[in-house]
C-alpha cells in the first residue's frame, strides 16, 4: 500500500513541468538558507502556516475545479471555523477546569477541530443548497461571473452576520495545550504548533487518499475534468457538487479552528487566508489541487521571510508583487492548470 502511494506520488510529481520542479527546489534552498541565517523557528513557522494554508487553498482549488465557482467567501468559512473553535473549546476548558484529570485535556482540542469540521461541512451544504443550486437551476450562462458575485454577497452577509450576532471583538484562546515547548535540536516549538502541524498533515494525507483511491473521490475528479463524461458514466452531479462544497468548506473550517491559538476570531479574519489562498491557487494554476499544496508552502515561506527580513505589514506588498511578476511570465501558473473551463467566460 505504502509503496503504491509513493509510486503514484512520484508519478504526479513527474507530470509537472520543469518549472514546478525548479520552484520547489528554490523554495527548499531558500528555506534552508533562511533557517541557517535566522534560526529554526522560521522553518517551523513556514511549515505550520503552509500546512494550514494548504487546507484553505485545497478547498478553494476544489470549488474552482469542480463547481467552477471563483469563491470569494472562502475566508468566511475559515472564520466560521475560528468561531466554532472558540465556543467549543471554551466550553471544554470550562469542563476541564472543574475536572482536571478528565481525558478531555488531551482529546479536547481534537474534539474542537472535529466540531469545526462538522459545522463547516454543514455550512457548505446549506450554501450549496440555498445559493448555488438556485442559480444553477435558473441559468448557466455567464456562470463564472454570476457565481463570483454571489460569493461576494455571501461574504458580506457572513462577515456582518458575525458582527451582528457575536460582536466585533477579538475572541481568542490562550492555547490548546499548556505545558513547556518541545525542543527539537535547539529549536523550541510550542505544543500548539506541533498540534496544528499534525492536524494539517493528517488532513492533507486523508484528503489526498480520498481523492485518489476512493470511488467518490475519483468521481469528484471526474466531474472536474469533464462534466458530461461524468454524467455519461452515471455520476449524479447534484450529489457530487454538494459533497465538494461541503468538503471544501470543512477544510477551511478545520484550518480556522487549527490556527485559533494564533489568530483570534473576529468578523473579517477571513480576508487574509482568502487572499493568501487565492495567491496559492493562481500560482498553482486554477483548480490544481495537488499543486495547491506545494504552492501553499512557497507562499507561506514568502510571507514568513517578508515579515522576518522586511517587517510586518509588508506581507501585503511583497508577495503580491512577486506573484504579479510570475503571472506576467507564466499566466497559467507554475503547475499548469487542470481545468481550462475556468478561464473561459
Amino acid at each position, binding site marked *: 500500500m505504502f509503496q503504491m502511494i509513493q509510486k503514484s506520488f512520484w508519478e504526479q510529481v513527474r507530470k509537472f513541468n520543469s518549472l514546478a520542479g525548479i520552484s520547489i527546489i528554490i523554495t527548499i534552498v531558500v528555506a534552508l538558507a533562511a533557517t541557517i541565517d535566522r534560526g529554526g523557528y522560521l522553518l517551523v513557522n513556514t511549515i505550520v502556516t503552509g500546512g494550514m494554508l494548504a487546507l484553505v487553498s485545497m478547498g478553494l482549488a476544489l470549488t474552482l475545479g469542480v463547481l467552477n465557482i471563483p469563491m470569494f467567501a472562502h475566508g468566511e468559512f475559515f472564520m466560521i471555523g475560528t468561531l466554532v473553535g472558540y465556543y467549543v473549546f471554551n466550553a471544554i476548558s470550562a469542563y476541564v477546569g472543574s475536572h482536571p484529570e478528565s481525558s478531555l485535556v488531551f482529546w479536547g482540542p481534537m474534539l474542537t477541530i472535529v466540531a469545526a469540521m462538522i459545522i463547516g461541512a454543514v455550512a457548505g451544504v446549506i450554501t450549496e443548497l440555498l445559493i448555488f443550486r438556485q442559480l444553477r437551476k435558473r441559468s448557466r450562462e455567464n456562470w463564472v461571473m454570476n457565481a463570483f458575485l454571489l460569493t461576494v454577497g455571501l461574504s458580506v452577509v457572513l462577515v456582518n452576520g458575525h458582527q451582528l450576532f457575536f460582536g466585533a471583538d477579538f475572541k481568542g484562546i490562550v492555547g490548546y495545550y499548556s505545558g513547556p515547548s518541545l525542543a527539537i535540536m535547539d529549536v523550541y516549538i510550542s505544543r500548539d504548533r506541533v498540534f496544528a502541524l499534525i492536524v494539517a498533515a493528517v488532513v492533507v494525507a486523508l484528503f489526498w487518499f480520498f481523492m485518489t483511491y476512493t470511488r467518490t473521490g*475519483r468521481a469528484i475528479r471526474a466531474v472536474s*475534468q*469533464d462534466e458530461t463524461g461524468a*454524467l*455519461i*458514466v*452515471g455520476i449524479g452531479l447534484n450529489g457530487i457538487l454538494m459533497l465538494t462544497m461541503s468538503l471544501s468548506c470543512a477544510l477551511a473550517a478545520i484550518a480556522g479552528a487549527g490556527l485559533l491559538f494564533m489568530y483570534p476570531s473576529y468578523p473579517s479574519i477571513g480576508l487574509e487566508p482568502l487572499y493568501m489562498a487565492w495567491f496559492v491557487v493562481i500560482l498553482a494554476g486554477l483548480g490544481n489541487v495537488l499543486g495547491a499544496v506545494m504552492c501553499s508552502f512557497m507562499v507561506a515561506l514568502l510571507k514568513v521571510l517578508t515579515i522576518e527580513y522586511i517587517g510586518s505589514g509588508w506581507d501585503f506588498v511583497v508577495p503580491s508583487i512577486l506573484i504579479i511578476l510570475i503571472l506576467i511570465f507564466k499566466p497559467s501558473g507554475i503547475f499548469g492548470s*487542470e481545468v481550462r473551463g475556468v478561464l473561459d467566460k
Partner: protein
Amino acid sequence: MLLEVKKLNAGYGYLQILRDVSLNVDTGEYVCLVGPNGAGKSTTLKTIAGLLSPTSGEILFDGEPIGGLPGNKVTRKGISLVSEDMNLFVNMSVEENLAMGAYIIRDKKAKKKQLEFVYDLFPRLAERSGQLAGTMSGGERKMLAIGRGLMANPQLLLVDEPSFGLAPQLTENVFQSLDVLVKKGLTIMLVEQNVTKTLEVTDRGYVLENGSIELSGKSSDLADNPHVRKVFLGV
C-alpha cells in the same frame, strides 16, 4: 422492444431540432441512424442518453419511460453513450477512466470481469493502462471511449460518430470491434457519417433529415434506395 422512441421533440433552448422522431430498437439488433450534417443525429442520441431533456414525446426503455431523466439515471438503467467528442477524463489514466466507466457497478468481481472483457477486446488499452487519457492518439481515445461505455455492462450502447477524425485503417478497427460486440449479443445504435460502410455492416437503419425520420428499413434495402443513393452517395 428494448428501446422505443415515440414522437420525440427536442432541441437547445428555443431552437427545435428534432420533430416527431419515432424509432425503435430490438434486443440484439445493430441499428444505425444516418443523415446529413445537422440533421439531428447526435441530438437524438443525447436526448435518449438524458443529456438533453425532450420537450415532448416518449422514450421507453424496456417498457419503462426514461424521457427527461438526467444522464446519470439513464446510465443506471442500462444505456451507455459513446459521445462524439468522447468526454474522456483527460487527466486520469486509462485504467482510471475505465474504472470510472464502471462507476455504477459496486460489485468488485463484476468490475474486474468487465475490465478483462474490455482489455480482451482492445489489447491496446491493456498495454497503455497507465497512460493519461489526454496524451493518447485519436484512435486510442476512441477505443477508450467505447471501452469506458462497455464498463457499465450496458444493455444498449449508443455510439456517436466512431469514425470521426480517424484514419481509414483505424476506422476499420473500430467497426470490427463493434461487430464483435454485436456478435456477443450487445444491442448497438450507431450514428455515422460514413453511410456506405454503415449500411454495409448494420441490420437496420433510419434516415434522419431536418430533424425527422424520412426513411427506415433494412440496411441493405436502404443502400439500394434511390433517394439515399442520391442524397448520400451522389449517384
